[in-house]
Protein backbone atom coordinates (compact mmCIF):
# COMPACT_ATOMS: atom_id res chain seq x y z
CA UNK A 1 0.00 0.00 0.00
CA UNK A 2 1.38 3.40 -0.93
CA UNK A 3 1.76 6.36 1.38
CA UNK A 4 -1.13 8.10 -0.31
CA UNK A 5 -3.40 5.11 0.14
CA UNK A 6 -2.54 4.88 3.81
CA UNK A 7 -3.12 8.59 4.27
CA UNK A 8 -6.48 8.20 2.55
CA UNK A 9 -7.41 5.65 5.20
CA UNK A 10 -6.53 8.19 7.88
CA UNK A 11 -8.69 10.77 6.19
CA UNK A 12 -11.53 8.28 5.96
CA UNK A 13 -11.06 7.61 9.71
CA UNK A 14 -10.57 3.95 8.88
CA UNK A 15 -8.69 2.19 11.67
CA UNK A 16 -7.08 0.00 9.07
CA UNK A 17 -4.77 2.98 8.65
CA UNK A 18 -2.98 2.03 11.84
CA UNK A 19 -2.59 -1.57 10.78
CA UNK A 20 -1.19 -0.54 7.42
CA UNK A 21 1.09 2.02 9.03
CA UNK A 22 2.36 -0.65 11.35
CA UNK A 23 2.85 -3.09 8.52
CA UNK A 24 4.80 -0.69 6.35
CA UNK A 25 6.59 1.46 8.89
CA UNK A 26 6.36 -0.53 12.13
CA UNK A 27 9.86 -1.89 11.92
CA UNK A 28 11.36 1.50 11.16
CA UNK A 29 9.47 3.15 14.04
CA UNK A 30 10.45 0.38 16.42
CA UNK A 31 14.12 0.60 15.62
CA UNK A 32 13.99 4.39 15.85
CA UNK A 33 12.50 4.15 19.33
CA UNK A 34 14.84 1.36 20.37
CA UNK A 35 17.90 3.38 19.48
CA UNK A 36 16.84 6.05 21.91
CA UNK A 37 15.15 4.07 24.64
CA UNK A 38 17.07 0.79 24.49
CA UNK A 39 14.14 -0.97 26.06
CA UNK A 40 11.64 -3.00 24.15
CA UNK A 41 8.63 -2.32 26.39
CA UNK A 42 9.33 1.41 26.36
CA UNK A 43 9.88 1.38 22.63
CA UNK A 44 6.64 -0.50 22.04
CA UNK A 45 4.71 2.05 24.05
CA UNK A 46 6.46 4.83 22.25
CA UNK A 47 5.53 3.42 18.87
CA UNK A 48 1.93 2.98 19.99
CA UNK A 49 1.91 6.60 21.06
CA UNK A 50 3.33 7.56 17.70
CA UNK A 51 0.50 5.78 15.91
CA UNK A 52 -2.01 7.53 18.13
CA UNK A 53 -0.41 10.86 17.44
CA UNK A 54 -0.47 10.17 13.73
CA UNK A 55 -4.13 9.22 14.00
CA UNK A 56 -4.89 12.47 15.80
CA UNK A 57 -2.80 14.58 13.43
CA UNK A 58 -4.00 13.22 10.10
CA UNK A 59 -6.21 14.98 9.17
CA UNK A 60 -5.81 17.93 9.14
CA UNK A 61 -2.15 17.27 8.42
CA UNK A 62 -1.35 15.56 5.18
CA UNK A 63 2.28 14.49 5.32
CA UNK A 64 4.18 14.65 2.10
CA UNK A 65 6.44 11.79 3.16
CA UNK A 66 4.68 9.52 5.61
CA UNK A 67 7.85 7.69 6.61
CA UNK A 68 9.62 10.87 7.61
CA UNK A 69 6.53 12.10 9.39
CA UNK A 70 6.32 8.92 11.47
CA UNK A 71 10.05 8.83 12.06
CA UNK A 72 9.95 12.38 13.38
CA UNK A 73 6.99 11.72 15.66
CA UNK A 74 8.52 8.52 17.00
CA UNK A 75 11.87 10.15 17.53
CA UNK A 76 10.38 13.10 19.38
CA UNK A 77 8.19 10.92 21.56
CA UNK A 78 11.13 8.65 22.32
CA UNK A 79 13.29 11.58 23.34
CA UNK A 80 10.53 12.94 25.55
CA UNK A 81 10.04 9.55 27.10
CA UNK A 82 13.75 9.07 27.53
CA UNK A 83 14.04 12.35 29.40
CA UNK A 84 11.20 11.40 31.69
CA UNK A 85 12.30 7.87 32.42
CA UNK A 86 16.04 7.71 32.34
CA UNK A 87 17.37 9.67 35.20
CA UNK A 88 19.81 6.96 36.13
CA UNK A 89 19.76 4.41 33.40
CA UNK A 90 21.10 6.32 30.48
CA UNK A 91 21.66 5.57 26.89
CA UNK A 92 25.29 6.59 26.79
CA UNK A 93 25.52 6.70 23.06
CA UNK A 94 22.53 9.00 22.79
CA UNK A 95 23.95 11.25 25.47
CA UNK A 96 27.21 11.39 23.59
CA UNK A 97 25.53 12.28 20.32
CA UNK A 98 23.53 15.02 22.03
CA UNK A 99 26.67 16.44 23.58
CA UNK A 100 28.33 16.52 20.21
CA UNK A 101 25.31 18.20 18.70
CA UNK A 102 25.39 20.87 21.37
CA UNK A 103 28.90 21.72 20.21
CA UNK A 104 27.66 22.94 16.88
CA UNK A 105 24.03 23.99 17.22
CA UNK A 106 22.84 26.65 19.65
CA UNK A 107 20.09 25.87 22.11
CA UNK A 108 17.14 27.49 20.44
CA UNK A 109 13.49 26.59 20.57
CA UNK A 110 11.36 26.95 17.46
CA UNK A 111 13.72 29.24 15.58
CA UNK A 112 12.68 29.24 11.92
CA UNK A 113 15.75 31.13 10.78
CA UNK A 114 18.03 28.65 12.47
CA UNK A 115 16.10 25.75 11.02
CA UNK A 116 16.41 27.20 7.50
CA UNK A 117 20.11 27.81 7.98
CA UNK A 118 20.68 24.23 9.10
CA UNK A 119 18.62 22.96 6.22
CA UNK A 120 20.65 25.01 3.75
CA UNK A 121 23.89 23.91 5.33
CA UNK A 122 22.94 20.24 5.15
CA UNK A 123 21.89 20.52 1.53
CA UNK A 124 25.26 22.04 0.72
CA UNK A 125 27.13 19.09 2.17
CA UNK A 126 28.49 16.22 0.20
CA UNK A 127 25.95 13.35 0.24
CA UNK A 128 27.89 11.03 2.48
CA UNK A 129 28.70 13.74 4.99
CA UNK A 130 25.06 14.75 5.15
CA UNK A 131 23.88 11.18 5.61
CA UNK A 132 26.46 10.54 8.29
CA UNK A 133 25.51 13.72 10.12
CA UNK A 134 21.77 13.06 10.07
CA UNK A 135 22.29 9.37 10.67
CA UNK A 136 24.19 10.15 13.80
CA UNK A 137 22.34 13.15 15.15
CA UNK A 138 18.82 12.63 13.88
CA UNK A 139 18.48 8.87 13.67
CA UNK A 140 20.94 8.14 16.49
CA UNK A 141 22.82 5.43 14.65
CA UNK A 142 25.99 4.38 16.37
CA UNK A 143 29.27 5.24 14.72
CA UNK A 144 30.01 1.57 14.42
CA UNK A 145 26.81 0.79 12.63
CA UNK A 146 27.30 3.61 10.14
CA UNK A 147 30.91 2.61 9.59
CA UNK A 148 29.76 -0.88 8.68
CA UNK A 149 26.99 0.36 6.43
CA UNK A 150 29.19 2.84 4.60
CA UNK A 151 32.22 0.60 4.40
CA UNK A 152 34.35 2.99 6.39
CA UNK A 153 36.37 2.67 9.53
CA UNK A 154 34.89 4.02 12.73
CA UNK A 155 37.69 6.55 12.92
CA UNK A 156 36.89 7.81 9.46
CA UNK A 157 33.23 8.24 10.36
CA UNK A 158 34.13 10.06 13.56
CA UNK A 159 36.53 12.31 11.71
CA UNK A 160 33.96 13.21 9.09
CA UNK A 161 31.38 13.92 11.76
CA UNK A 162 33.84 16.10 13.59
CA UNK A 163 34.65 18.09 10.48
CA UNK A 164 30.98 18.54 9.65
CA UNK A 165 30.26 19.73 13.18
CA UNK A 166 33.08 22.22 12.94
CA UNK A 167 31.82 23.46 9.59
CA UNK A 168 28.29 23.84 10.91
CA UNK A 169 29.50 25.63 13.97
CA UNK A 170 31.55 28.09 11.89
CA UNK A 171 28.66 28.56 9.49
CA UNK A 172 26.16 29.37 12.24
CA UNK A 173 28.58 31.64 14.04
CA UNK A 174 29.13 33.51 10.81
CA UNK A 175 25.37 33.93 10.62
CA UNK A 176 25.37 35.56 14.03
CA UNK A 177 24.58 32.65 16.32
CA UNK A 178 26.57 32.13 19.45
CA UNK A 179 27.35 28.55 20.39
Amino acid at each position, binding site marked *: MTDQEIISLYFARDEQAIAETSRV*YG*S*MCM*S*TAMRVLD*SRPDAEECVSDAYLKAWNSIPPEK*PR*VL*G*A*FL*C*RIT*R*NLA*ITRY*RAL*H*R*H*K*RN*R*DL*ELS*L*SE*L*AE*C*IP*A*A*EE*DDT*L*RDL*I*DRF*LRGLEDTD*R*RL*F*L*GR*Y*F*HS*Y*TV*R*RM*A*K*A*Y*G*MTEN*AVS*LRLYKTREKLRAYLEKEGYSI
Partner: protein
Amino acid sequence: MTNEKGFAAYTALKSVADDLVMDALLPADGGSAVVAPISKRRPVYEFFSHGWGVAVICALVAIAVMGGIIWAGQQPDIETPPVGMPISPGETKKETPETEQMPAPDEPSENETDVSDTQESEVNAVVLHGLERKYIPPKFLCNSTTLTEGEDGLRHGETADGLGFEGVMQSGETPLLPTVIWVKDGISDYLDVAEGYTVKEFKVYDMDMQLVESGSAVQGLDSEEAVNRFIIKKLPVGKWYMSLRVEHDGGEMHHCVYEYAFIAEVHESATVAVTRHCSVSLDRERYVWGEDRQYLVTLTASASGEALDITGGRWKLINLETDEIVTSMQMSMDPMCSITANGTLSIVWPYSSEEYARYTTWMSLAWEETPPGKYRLIWLLEPAGGDLAVQDPYCDFYIDAHT
Protein backbone atom coordinates in the same frame (compact mmCIF):
# COMPACT_ATOMS: atom_id res chain seq x y z
CA MET B 1 21.11 14.51 34.94
CA THR B 2 20.28 14.63 31.30
CA ASN B 3 21.92 16.62 28.61
CA GLU B 4 19.66 19.66 28.43
CA LYS B 5 21.87 21.57 26.07
CA GLY B 6 21.96 18.62 23.74
CA PHE B 7 18.20 18.23 23.81
CA ALA B 8 17.84 21.92 23.00
CA ALA B 9 20.22 21.55 20.08
CA TYR B 10 18.26 18.56 18.93
CA THR B 11 15.13 20.72 18.90
CA ALA B 12 16.71 22.81 16.17
CA LEU B 13 17.58 19.73 14.20
CA LYS B 14 14.30 17.90 14.48
CA SER B 15 12.59 20.04 11.84
CA VAL B 16 15.02 19.11 9.12
CA ALA B 17 13.35 18.47 5.78
CA ASP B 18 11.58 15.18 5.12
CA ASP B 19 13.68 14.21 2.14
CA LEU B 20 16.87 14.62 4.12
CA VAL B 21 15.49 12.55 6.99
CA MET B 22 14.57 9.69 4.69
CA ASP B 23 17.79 9.98 2.75
CA ALA B 24 19.82 9.39 5.90
CA LEU B 25 17.96 6.26 6.95
CA LEU B 26 20.02 3.13 6.59
CA PRO B 27 18.52 0.47 4.35
CA ALA B 28 17.81 -1.80 7.29
CA ASP B 29 15.33 0.78 8.54
CA GLY B 30 13.66 1.22 5.22
CA GLY B 31 15.95 3.89 3.89
CA SER B 32 15.86 4.12 0.16
CA ALA B 33 19.37 5.41 -0.23
CA VAL B 34 21.57 2.46 -0.82
CA VAL B 35 24.71 3.02 1.04
CA ALA B 36 27.46 2.33 -1.40
CA PRO B 37 30.53 1.14 0.40
CA ILE B 38 33.21 3.73 0.27
CA SER B 39 36.68 2.74 -0.72
CA LYS B 40 38.71 1.72 2.23
CA ARG B 41 41.58 3.76 0.99
CA ARG B 42 42.07 6.74 3.17
CA PRO B 43 40.73 9.92 1.68
CA VAL B 44 43.30 12.57 0.86
CA TYR B 45 42.03 14.96 3.45
CA GLU B 46 42.55 12.33 6.13
CA PHE B 47 46.12 12.01 5.02
CA PHE B 48 46.60 15.72 5.23
CA SER B 49 44.90 15.95 8.56
CA HIS B 50 47.92 14.32 10.13
CA GLY B 51 51.10 16.24 10.68
CA TRP B 52 53.19 13.43 9.35
CA GLY B 53 51.21 13.47 6.14
CA VAL B 54 52.17 17.07 5.54
CA ALA B 55 55.75 16.28 6.52
CA VAL B 56 55.91 13.47 3.96
CA ILE B 57 54.59 15.74 1.23
CA CYS B 58 57.08 18.48 2.16
CA ALA B 59 59.92 15.96 2.10
CA LEU B 60 58.91 14.69 -1.34
CA VAL B 61 58.69 18.23 -2.69
CA ALA B 62 62.11 19.06 -1.26
CA ILE B 63 63.64 15.93 -2.80
CA ALA B 64 62.07 16.76 -6.14
CA VAL B 65 63.38 20.33 -6.06
CA MET B 66 66.87 19.23 -5.03
CA GLY B 67 66.86 16.56 -7.72
CA GLY B 68 65.80 19.13 -10.26
CA ILE B 69 68.61 21.48 -9.26
CA ILE B 70 71.21 18.71 -9.46
CA TRP B 71 69.86 17.47 -12.76
CA ALA B 72 69.84 20.99 -14.20
CA GLY B 73 73.44 21.48 -13.11
CA GLN B 74 74.50 18.39 -15.04
CA GLN B 75 72.79 19.30 -18.30
CA PRO B 76 74.33 21.31 -21.13
CA ASP B 77 72.72 24.67 -21.61
CA ILE B 78 69.89 24.34 -24.01
CA GLU B 79 67.51 26.94 -25.08
CA THR B 80 64.10 26.64 -23.68
CA PRO B 81 61.74 26.17 -26.56
CA PRO B 82 59.39 29.03 -27.02
CA VAL B 83 55.87 28.71 -25.85
CA GLY B 84 53.81 26.81 -28.37
CA MET B 85 56.73 24.89 -29.82
CA PRO B 86 55.91 21.18 -30.04
CA ILE B 87 57.84 18.83 -27.86
CA SER B 88 60.00 16.23 -29.51
CA PRO B 89 58.17 13.21 -30.96
CA GLY B 90 59.79 10.81 -28.51
CA GLU B 91 58.28 12.58 -25.59
CA THR B 92 54.85 11.65 -24.68
CA LYS B 93 52.84 12.68 -21.74
CA LYS B 94 53.42 10.11 -19.08
CA GLU B 95 50.32 8.33 -17.97
CA THR B 96 49.58 8.70 -14.36
CA PRO B 97 50.27 5.30 -12.88
CA GLU B 98 47.11 3.51 -12.03
CA THR B 99 46.33 3.37 -8.43
CA GLU B 100 45.87 0.06 -6.76
CA GLN B 101 42.78 -1.57 -8.10
CA MET B 102 40.27 -2.24 -5.41
CA PRO B 103 37.84 -5.04 -6.00
CA ALA B 104 34.28 -3.98 -6.47
CA PRO B 105 32.35 -4.12 -3.22
CA ASP B 106 30.32 -7.09 -4.27
CA GLU B 107 33.07 -8.91 -6.02
CA PRO B 108 33.80 -12.18 -4.27
CA SER B 109 37.31 -12.82 -3.17
CA GLU B 110 39.24 -15.79 -4.39
CA ASN B 111 38.19 -17.79 -1.44
CA GLU B 112 34.60 -16.75 -1.54
CA THR B 113 31.91 -17.85 -3.85
CA ASP B 114 28.61 -16.08 -3.93
CA VAL B 115 25.70 -18.30 -3.30
CA SER B 116 23.61 -18.98 -6.32
CA ASP B 117 20.35 -17.16 -6.77
CA THR B 118 18.43 -20.17 -5.60
CA GLN B 119 20.54 -20.60 -2.53
CA GLU B 120 20.48 -16.93 -1.76
CA SER B 121 16.75 -16.67 -1.92
CA GLU B 122 16.48 -19.72 0.25
CA VAL B 123 18.78 -18.26 2.82
CA ASN B 124 17.13 -14.89 2.67
CA ALA B 125 13.82 -16.53 3.27
CA VAL B 126 15.25 -18.22 6.28
CA VAL B 127 16.68 -15.02 7.56
CA LEU B 128 13.65 -12.93 6.89
CA HIS B 129 11.52 -15.36 8.80
CA GLY B 130 13.01 -14.01 11.99
CA LEU B 131 13.77 -10.54 10.80
CA GLU B 132 10.94 -8.58 12.25
CA ARG B 133 11.52 -9.79 15.69
CA LYS B 134 15.24 -9.71 15.74
CA TYR B 135 16.03 -6.32 14.32
CA ILE B 136 18.74 -7.71 12.15
CA PRO B 137 19.60 -5.49 9.23
CA PRO B 138 18.69 -7.54 6.18
CA LYS B 139 21.49 -6.14 4.07
CA PHE B 140 24.01 -7.36 6.56
CA LEU B 141 22.55 -10.80 6.61
CA CYS B 142 22.33 -11.08 2.87
CA ASN B 143 25.91 -10.06 2.49
CA SER B 144 26.94 -12.72 4.93
CA THR B 145 25.55 -15.61 3.03
CA THR B 146 28.57 -16.71 1.12
CA LEU B 147 30.14 -20.06 0.74
CA THR B 148 33.66 -20.28 1.96
CA GLU B 149 36.43 -22.76 1.88
CA GLY B 150 37.96 -23.41 5.23
CA GLU B 151 41.29 -24.63 6.36
CA ASP B 152 39.92 -28.14 6.44
CA GLY B 153 39.47 -27.98 2.71
CA LEU B 154 35.75 -28.47 2.95
CA ARG B 155 33.37 -26.18 1.25
CA HIS B 156 31.25 -25.27 4.18
CA GLY B 157 27.74 -26.22 3.50
CA GLU B 158 28.95 -29.51 2.16
CA THR B 159 29.85 -31.13 5.42
CA ALA B 160 29.83 -34.85 5.59
CA ASP B 161 26.38 -35.26 6.98
CA GLY B 162 24.93 -32.25 5.26
CA LEU B 163 24.22 -30.35 8.41
CA GLY B 164 25.23 -26.77 8.41
CA PHE B 165 25.39 -23.99 10.85
CA GLU B 166 25.07 -20.36 10.23
CA GLY B 167 25.17 -17.56 12.68
CA VAL B 168 25.25 -13.89 12.21
CA MET B 169 26.30 -11.52 14.85
CA GLN B 170 24.57 -8.24 14.61
CA SER B 171 26.94 -5.46 13.93
CA GLY B 172 26.74 -1.99 15.25
CA GLU B 173 24.80 -2.77 18.36
CA THR B 174 26.01 -3.29 21.86
CA PRO B 175 25.82 -5.85 23.17
CA LEU B 176 26.06 -8.03 20.15
CA LEU B 177 23.44 -10.62 19.66
CA PRO B 178 24.26 -13.73 17.74
CA THR B 179 21.43 -15.12 15.76
CA VAL B 180 21.72 -18.77 15.26
CA ILE B 181 20.18 -20.64 12.46
CA TRP B 182 20.60 -24.32 11.93
CA VAL B 183 19.84 -25.82 8.65
CA LYS B 184 20.02 -29.25 7.17
CA ASP B 185 21.83 -29.29 3.86
CA GLY B 186 22.92 -25.92 5.02
CA ILE B 187 24.35 -23.19 2.98
CA SER B 188 27.11 -22.43 5.37
CA ASP B 189 28.30 -23.38 8.74
CA TYR B 190 30.22 -20.58 10.24
CA LEU B 191 29.69 -17.67 12.47
CA ASP B 192 30.70 -14.27 11.28
CA VAL B 193 31.73 -11.94 13.99
CA ALA B 194 31.66 -8.23 13.69
CA GLU B 195 34.84 -6.36 12.95
CA GLY B 196 37.08 -6.01 15.94
CA TYR B 197 35.65 -9.04 17.69
CA THR B 198 37.27 -12.40 18.06
CA VAL B 199 35.69 -15.70 18.86
CA LYS B 200 37.95 -17.16 21.49
CA GLU B 201 36.21 -20.36 22.24
CA PHE B 202 33.09 -22.29 21.57
CA LYS B 203 31.62 -25.32 23.23
CA VAL B 204 28.78 -27.56 22.30
CA TYR B 205 27.00 -29.64 24.90
CA ASP B 206 24.19 -32.06 24.69
CA MET B 207 21.19 -31.39 26.84
CA ASP B 208 22.69 -33.38 29.68
CA MET B 209 25.51 -30.89 29.61
CA GLN B 210 28.01 -33.39 28.34
CA LEU B 211 30.61 -31.69 26.24
CA VAL B 212 30.29 -32.77 22.64
CA GLU B 213 32.66 -30.49 20.86
CA SER B 214 34.81 -27.51 21.57
CA GLY B 215 37.36 -25.46 19.80
CA SER B 216 38.68 -22.08 19.04
CA ALA B 217 37.86 -19.83 16.20
CA VAL B 218 39.06 -20.40 12.71
CA GLN B 219 40.57 -17.18 11.63
CA GLY B 220 38.59 -15.71 8.80
CA LEU B 221 39.88 -15.90 5.31
CA ASP B 222 39.66 -12.21 4.73
CA SER B 223 41.77 -10.74 7.45
CA GLU B 224 41.04 -7.21 6.34
CA GLU B 225 37.46 -7.71 7.31
CA ALA B 226 38.54 -9.23 10.60
CA VAL B 227 36.09 -12.00 10.11
CA ASN B 228 36.23 -14.86 12.53
CA ARG B 229 34.52 -18.07 11.91
CA PHE B 230 34.08 -21.24 13.73
CA ILE B 231 32.90 -24.43 12.28
CA ILE B 232 30.82 -27.12 13.78
CA LYS B 233 30.09 -30.34 12.05
CA LYS B 234 28.26 -33.58 12.47
CA LEU B 235 25.60 -32.55 14.88
CA PRO B 236 22.57 -34.73 14.45
CA VAL B 237 19.02 -33.56 14.64
CA GLY B 238 18.15 -32.55 18.14
CA LYS B 239 18.74 -29.89 20.75
CA TRP B 240 22.16 -28.62 21.59
CA TYR B 241 23.44 -26.18 24.09
CA MET B 242 26.23 -23.90 22.95
CA SER B 243 28.38 -21.37 24.64
CA LEU B 244 30.53 -18.89 22.88
CA ARG B 245 33.18 -16.54 24.15
CA VAL B 246 33.84 -13.43 22.16
CA GLU B 247 36.34 -10.74 22.91
CA HIS B 248 36.61 -7.24 21.68
CA ASP B 249 40.12 -6.02 22.01
CA GLY B 250 40.07 -2.28 21.90
CA GLY B 251 43.03 -1.74 24.17
CA GLU B 252 43.37 -2.09 27.86
CA MET B 253 40.51 0.15 28.78
CA HIS B 254 38.26 -0.96 25.98
CA HIS B 255 38.56 -4.64 26.41
CA CYS B 256 35.23 -6.38 26.51
CA VAL B 257 34.33 -9.98 26.89
CA TYR B 258 30.99 -11.30 25.80
CA GLU B 259 29.64 -14.66 26.69
CA TYR B 260 26.79 -16.13 24.80
CA ALA B 261 24.84 -19.21 25.42
CA PHE B 262 21.96 -20.50 23.48
CA ILE B 263 20.01 -23.56 22.66
CA ALA B 264 19.80 -24.47 19.07
CA GLU B 265 17.73 -27.13 17.46
CA VAL B 266 18.78 -28.98 14.41
CA HIS B 267 15.78 -29.70 12.27
CA GLU B 268 15.18 -32.00 9.40
CA SER B 269 14.17 -29.25 7.09
CA ALA B 270 15.97 -26.09 6.13
CA THR B 271 13.91 -23.79 8.21
CA VAL B 272 14.64 -21.47 11.04
CA ALA B 273 15.12 -23.30 14.24
CA VAL B 274 14.44 -22.11 17.70
CA THR B 275 17.12 -20.06 19.30
CA ARG B 276 17.53 -18.99 22.81
CA HIS B 277 20.51 -17.11 23.97
CA CYS B 278 21.59 -14.66 26.53
CA SER B 279 24.68 -12.74 27.29
CA VAL B 280 26.28 -10.60 29.88
CA SER B 281 28.86 -8.02 29.15
CA LEU B 282 30.88 -5.38 30.77
CA ASP B 283 31.99 -2.52 28.67
CA ARG B 284 34.33 -0.31 30.55
CA GLU B 285 34.58 2.23 27.83
CA ARG B 286 30.95 3.03 27.82
CA TYR B 287 30.13 3.02 31.43
CA VAL B 288 32.75 5.12 33.01
CA TRP B 289 30.86 8.28 32.71
CA GLY B 290 30.68 11.76 34.05
CA GLU B 291 30.60 12.64 37.68
CA ASP B 292 28.74 9.59 38.86
CA ARG B 293 31.23 7.15 37.46
CA GLN B 294 30.17 3.59 37.63
CA TYR B 295 30.60 0.22 36.09
CA LEU B 296 27.49 -0.82 34.37
CA VAL B 297 26.95 -4.43 33.60
CA THR B 298 24.30 -5.24 31.09
CA LEU B 299 22.49 -8.45 30.50
CA THR B 300 20.64 -9.09 27.34
CA ALA B 301 18.64 -12.22 26.99
CA SER B 302 16.68 -13.15 23.98
CA ALA B 303 14.55 -16.02 23.04
CA SER B 304 12.17 -16.95 20.35
CA GLY B 305 10.01 -19.71 19.14
CA GLU B 306 8.10 -22.54 20.62
CA ALA B 307 10.65 -23.54 23.19
CA LEU B 308 10.49 -20.29 25.09
CA ASP B 309 8.99 -20.26 28.49
CA ILE B 310 11.42 -18.45 30.64
CA THR B 311 10.17 -17.52 34.00
CA GLY B 312 13.01 -15.68 35.53
CA GLY B 313 16.66 -15.17 35.92
CA ARG B 314 19.23 -14.27 38.51
CA TRP B 315 22.47 -12.40 38.70
CA LYS B 316 25.27 -13.46 40.93
CA LEU B 317 28.40 -11.43 41.37
CA ILE B 318 31.44 -13.16 42.82
CA ASN B 319 34.84 -11.87 43.77
CA LEU B 320 37.08 -14.48 42.17
CA GLU B 321 40.01 -13.77 44.45
CA THR B 322 38.07 -14.37 47.63
CA ASP B 323 35.29 -16.52 46.21
CA GLU B 324 32.85 -14.36 48.05
CA ILE B 325 29.53 -13.31 46.71
CA VAL B 326 29.64 -9.60 46.58
CA THR B 327 27.04 -7.88 48.63
CA SER B 328 28.78 -4.92 50.11
CA MET B 329 29.11 -2.80 47.04
CA GLN B 330 26.68 -0.13 46.40
CA MET B 331 24.57 -1.30 43.55
CA SER B 332 21.81 0.23 41.65
CA MET B 333 19.60 -1.82 39.48
CA ASP B 334 16.77 -2.00 37.15
CA PRO B 335 13.38 -1.56 38.83
CA MET B 336 12.54 -5.11 37.88
CA CYS B 337 15.49 -6.41 39.87
CA SER B 338 15.80 -7.02 43.54
CA ILE B 339 18.70 -8.13 45.65
CA THR B 340 18.36 -11.07 47.98
CA ALA B 341 20.04 -11.73 51.29
CA ASN B 342 22.68 -13.98 49.77
CA GLY B 343 23.71 -11.38 47.25
CA THR B 344 21.86 -12.75 44.29
CA LEU B 345 20.14 -10.26 42.14
CA SER B 346 16.81 -11.44 40.97
CA ILE B 347 15.01 -10.11 38.01
CA VAL B 348 11.51 -10.58 36.93
CA TRP B 349 11.49 -11.89 33.42
CA PRO B 350 8.80 -9.90 31.73
CA TYR B 351 7.95 -12.39 29.06
CA SER B 352 6.42 -15.78 29.32
CA SER B 353 5.01 -16.63 26.01
CA GLU B 354 5.94 -18.13 22.73
CA GLU B 355 6.72 -14.74 21.36
CA TYR B 356 10.19 -13.54 20.72
CA ALA B 357 11.42 -11.58 23.65
CA ARG B 358 14.44 -9.51 24.26
CA TYR B 359 15.02 -8.15 27.66
CA THR B 360 17.87 -6.02 28.80
CA THR B 361 18.53 -5.43 32.39
CA TRP B 362 21.44 -3.84 34.06
CA MET B 363 23.16 -3.16 37.27
CA SER B 364 25.87 -0.72 38.10
CA LEU B 365 28.69 -0.84 40.55
CA ALA B 366 29.76 2.37 42.16
CA TRP B 367 33.13 3.32 40.79
CA GLU B 368 34.75 4.49 43.98
CA GLU B 369 33.31 1.78 46.15
CA THR B 370 34.23 -1.15 44.00
CA PRO B 371 37.68 -2.31 45.02
CA PRO B 372 40.16 -3.44 42.39
CA GLY B 373 39.97 -7.15 41.79
CA LYS B 374 38.72 -9.90 39.60
CA TYR B 375 35.03 -10.52 39.47
CA ARG B 376 32.68 -12.95 37.84
CA LEU B 377 29.13 -12.16 37.05
CA ILE B 378 26.90 -15.13 36.53
CA TRP B 379 23.56 -15.07 34.90
CA LEU B 380 21.28 -17.91 35.74
CA LEU B 381 18.51 -18.42 33.30
CA GLU B 382 15.46 -20.18 34.52
CA PRO B 383 13.26 -21.64 31.88
CA ALA B 384 10.03 -23.13 33.07
CA GLY B 385 11.04 -26.66 32.13
CA GLY B 386 14.23 -26.38 34.11
CA ASP B 387 16.33 -27.76 31.30
CA LEU B 388 18.88 -25.01 31.34
CA ALA B 389 20.20 -25.01 34.88
CA VAL B 390 23.74 -24.07 34.06
CA GLN B 391 25.98 -21.39 35.34
CA ASP B 392 26.75 -20.09 31.94
CA PRO B 393 27.12 -17.65 30.54
CA TYR B 394 29.27 -15.70 32.83
CA CYS B 395 31.35 -12.62 32.48
CA ASP B 396 34.71 -12.17 34.15
CA PHE B 397 35.97 -8.69 34.52
CA TYR B 398 38.81 -6.94 36.17
CA ILE B 399 38.85 -3.70 37.99
CA ASP B 400 42.25 -2.12 38.10
CA ALA B 401 43.37 0.81 40.14
CA HIS B 402 40.89 3.63 39.87
CA THR B 403 42.05 6.42 37.69
